[in-house]
């Protein structure tokens, strides 16, 4: 039997062992399924001076989940969780839309800028509140953020007076449906935040500090890391990301519905983080993984209407895909697959790499 050079095999094995192999494989598989259902799925054309097509829609519609998930990744890395992001998104949308509607110059670009700034300032305040409860008062993150998850939607309802508030402001609408150099603005914002976060956490010591706080906050504090400030900061960052996501969702339909804006987005975001390989136990995190996770979820959402899954079955379909990806990624499944791959022991077992 002519054995191919070991390098190819080793490369394959290394790819297979990579954390992101299965999420990427699932993403690829979903895209292929879509391509079979709609042969024109990958077609992208220029429409009214911007790119137009299913793939562009996926990246644009995935922007809110990606934004929320970026913030969530850092929170989860500190061994925390933020359940309030959906409510914060609703508040941001509500504040911005109500400000625009009440403003005398409701179509002006300046109004939109003030509205967005105000909404984000409110989000910082909400993030400070979450961070205060977690880092200073010492309430468990799931409970501390549950407060705002429940109360936040009420606040958003209060701001809008329970009404669906519609705005007519082209600058605000451009946040979601606008284009810059033929690319959708929403996607550019999300990818911009992604790149900036990646640079800040990886080029400075911040990422390392966040991980150390997540692994052991007390030991980190004793070692001179300001755990409290770091935890506080990530909650503010998460709220800012959530607020930006809320503004994009509101801009997408020129309106805010405090009941439904960002509903369950926290679950999608947590899912994106977990699919991306960041452990809920805190510590090591991967923003690239989160990016892949968010795109997988956005593609999944698009797949349902595209391949014509009946409305009654779409949650089931979504759940099945997620379960399969999570199972394939689990240490047990990977260990089994690994063993089957290399019948002949070639190197040290990979199992120890999985913590």
């Amino acid at each position, binding site marked *: 039997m002519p054995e191919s050079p070991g390098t190819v095999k080793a490369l394959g094995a290394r790819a297979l062992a990579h954390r992101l192999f299965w999420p990427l494989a699932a993403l690829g598989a979903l895209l292929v399924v879509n391509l079979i*259902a*709609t042969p*024109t*799925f990958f077609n992208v054309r220029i*429409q*009214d001076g911007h790119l*137009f*097509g*299913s793939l562009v*829609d996926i990246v644009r*519609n995935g922007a809110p989940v990606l934004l929320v998930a970026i913030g969530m990744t850092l929170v989860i890395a500190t061994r925390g969780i933020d359940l309030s992001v959906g409510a914060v998104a609703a508040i941001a949308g509500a504040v911005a839309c109500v400000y625009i509607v009440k403003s005398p110059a409701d179509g002006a670009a300046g109004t939109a800028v003030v509205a967005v700034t105000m909404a984000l300032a409110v989000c910082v305040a909400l993030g400070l509140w979450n961070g205060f409860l977690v880092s200073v008062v010492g309430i468990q993150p799931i409970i501390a953020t549950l407060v705002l998850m429940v109360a936040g939607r009420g606040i958003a*309802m209060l701001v809008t007076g*329970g*009404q*669906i508030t*519609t705005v007519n402001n082209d600058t605000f609408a451009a946040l979601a*449906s606008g284009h810059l150099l033929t690319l959708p603005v929403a996607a550019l914002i999300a990818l911009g935040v992604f790149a900036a976060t990646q640079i800040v956490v990886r080029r400075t010591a911040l990422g390392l500090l966040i991980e150390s706080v997540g692994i052991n906050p007390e030991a980190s504090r004793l070692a001179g890391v300001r755990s409290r400030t770091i935890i506080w900061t990530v909650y503010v960052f998460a709220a800012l990301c959530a607020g930006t996501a809320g503004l994009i*969702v509101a801009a*997408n*339909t*020129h*309106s805010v*519905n405090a*009941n*439904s*804006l960002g509903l369950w987005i926290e679950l999608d975001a947590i899912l994106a983080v977990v699919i991306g390989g960041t452990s809920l136990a805190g510590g090591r995190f991967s923003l690239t993984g989160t990016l892949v996770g968010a795109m997988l979820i956005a593609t999944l*959402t*698009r797949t*349902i*209407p*595209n*391949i*014509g*899954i*009946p*409305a*009654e079955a*779409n949650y089931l379909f979504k759940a099945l895909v997620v379960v399969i990806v999570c199972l394939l990624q689990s240490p047990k499944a990977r260990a089994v697959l690994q063993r089957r791959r290399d019948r002949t022991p070639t190197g040290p077992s990979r199992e120890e790499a999985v913590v």
Partner: protein
Amino acid sequence: MKKTLTALCALAIGGMSLSACGGSEAADDGSITMGFAQVGAESGWRTANTTSIQESAKEAGIELKFSDAQQKQENQIKSIRSYIQQKVDVIAFSPVVETGWDAVLQEAKRAKIPVVLTDRAVDTEDTSLYVTFIGSDFVEEGEKAGQWLVDNADASDVDKDGAVNVVELQGTTGSAPAIDRKKGFEDKISADSKIKITASQTGDFTRDGGKQVMEAFLQSEPKIDVVYAHNDDMGLGAIEAIKAAGKKPGTDIKIITVDAVKDGMTALAAGEINFIVECSPLLGPQLMDVAEKVVAGEEVPERIVTEETTFTPEQAAEVLPDRKY
């Protein structure tokens, strides 16, 4: 769970004995007192519904005790119990969910207080628990939408290929309006073999949902002639998606929706929607009428359908200036 229940019971009992001590009995001077337990204030539709009830009670000279349940069944049950304690003449409410009302409605029956359901039905085997149900007939709404399409089938065949391809944006899966509006529509369009639904997916009654599903349909269904949306909001989302695809809503793709809220009517008057079937929240006058009859001991039908109409763009432009919701 058990503890919460016990606590709730204790609270309820406490509340009862308190109000009993208070001896707050409605004066029997011939005037009517109505207790109304509203679901909440989740939408413009609901707010208009509340306003209609409050205003028409005032007009009819009926004293209205109003409570807002904030989407919670236990709150509604609590307020119904308090109305029973206060011995109001008639209780009306829009049940937040369909099941779980038998016990509290039994209490009302024992206290000989008639109950009127508005807008939403309850699921119970004992129909003697309420006198009547006032509300929209969602099947009929779907039928009206379907009938319009059958009547305007030729004009709706935008690409003139001899087939009218409809994509449907369904409401929240499993909700009564979504099921019934789908059924009524399908029943009517089956009369014309040219018309068929080529794709159908839920947009959860929201603009964002409608927009995202429509974006997908625009890519996967090449020959869409008509969009049928189960409410205005999803239709408005679809309009955005159609515009982004470089097509003209209302012209390149016909749009039919249900509800007739202000934003929808504005789009209809602008020609971006072609036909809206009304689902009216203004059932206050009918409710007060029924209340007076019930208290006077007159017979009322078991099911009263809200008076509703349909709108074309011209009609919308006419009524838009004084549209309440």
